[in-house]
């Protein structure tokens, strides 16, 4: 079954299957940096339960994870380390920027030690604003990322 995708790229059934697999099994890395980490844990916990969407296993090793949820303020000392951990992850890898601090500095935008958005260091796929975002918002972010992986989003 062949199908012409956007930009004239042929998407074969195998690629479709891989995309389906990737999108439904996003294992996040435990990358809790600050306040948002608690809400990330809450997303894993009973009330929201991200395991429904296949992101059950929070791996501690970057080698085994697909998704880096940068949860919490990234300051200037931390940013190079975030970058290094991102580089340790195998492709295909995805990044969710959780919280306004990670998106553009948030309340600390006037200060001297906070990076104005983690996207200056690593590429970000989905931005989830909020301070901190609720677990539901983060779940929505993950669903958006799943759609993005399956090429279902309208651009």
């Amino acid at each position, binding site marked *: 079954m062949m199908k012409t995708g956007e930009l004239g790229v042929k998407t074969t059934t195998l690629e479709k*299957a*891989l995309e*389906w*697999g*990737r999108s*439904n*099994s996003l294992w996040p890395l435990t990358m809790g940096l600050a306040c948002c980490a608690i809400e990330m844990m809450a997303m894993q*916990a*009973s009330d929201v*339960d991200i*395991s*429904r*969407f*296949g992101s*059950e296993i929070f*791996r*501690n*090793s970057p*080698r*085994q994870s*697909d998704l880096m949820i940068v949860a919490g303020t990234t300051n200037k000392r931390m940013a190079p380390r975030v970058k290094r951990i991102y580089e*340790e992850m*195998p*492709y*295909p890898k995805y990044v969710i920027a959780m919280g306004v601090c990670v998106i553009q500095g948030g309340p600390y935008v006037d200060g001297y030690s906070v990076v104005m958005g983690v996207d200056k260091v690593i590429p970000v796929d989905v931005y989830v604003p909020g301070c901190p975002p609720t677990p539901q918002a983060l779940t929505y972010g993950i669903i958006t990322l799943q759609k993005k992986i399956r090429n279902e989003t309208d651009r």
Partner: protein
Amino acid sequence: MNLLFKLHQWFSFLGNYASYGIAYLIETIVVLAFVAISFIILIYVFRKYMARIQLRIGPNRVGKFGLLQLIADALKLMGKESILPKGRDDMAYKIAPIITMMSIMVSFIIIPYGGLYYFGNLTTTHSDITLILIFGILSIMPIGEVLGGISTRSNYAILGTLRGIAKDVSFEVPMLISVLAIVMVSSRSFVTGGSTYNSLSLAGIVTNEIIPYGIIEPLGLIVFFISMIARASYSPFDLSESDSELISGSTTEYGGMRFGLFYIGLFGMVYLGSFLVSLLYLGGYNGPVSSYFGFIFLLIKVIILVLIAFLIWLSLPRMRIDRFVQFGWKYLLPLAVINLIYAGFFVLYIR
């Protein structure tokens, strides 16, 4: 009449040797397929069961009731980039997950499965020394873990591996002593009081096991069950992984399907351990009614044991390594030896 002979008769037009060969091949493939499918079901059951204990729902979006979750995981793991750490020992790094996985798979071919109504006896390996064979293979399994940990030259992995070795050394001896007690008890027939000839094969032990040996030697059952938990290395004995201390322990540097093999190996060992406990101590495929449904009885016992294992996994904290080594040598070993002496007296009594 077992499955092998049936298959042999179907292919008898090819001549004697060829038909046996094909029969063995088909049987092995069937067993491996059964094992692979049951792994998938097992991990799915584990996730659902874990979710239930933890007041969650568990996977339910991928496929009906989340049944395809494991397929998605496997597809994703296969599609991952293969990262090879710098400074690794290349050969050891690459074969380590394969050793772990293969030893699990081979063990499943050795296990006797009992009879099922139409198919007859499902046992694949017809040997008189399957007991020795299976524990031989089980002792190969940690080699995979050790190679995987040491070859990556990561501090976390090396510490995890050292813990794993210390753990293996301290429980393997009590485990084998308690198996020895089984062999002793099994060498005397309950019915005739005479000696039996096949107490070194798993199938022979199960045949002799008219009363489950777990009732005769409860100490042995406890020691062996704890050893099986330690072999499978899940909580409270997940020392080689210890994911809250050493990131992922000996598998820290593994990603993609290589990690997937270790991950499946973990669940495979839970499953295999449950098979061994139920074969050696709980009567295996012997059941209250005719042995036509032996395989079903075995599976029921295994499922109950697996669920108990998962419950232990989810509710206990991890032991500290020195405590575990002490536990192995100070409690498990004496218990196993007491059990051995008791088994000796028991055998004398039967006579």
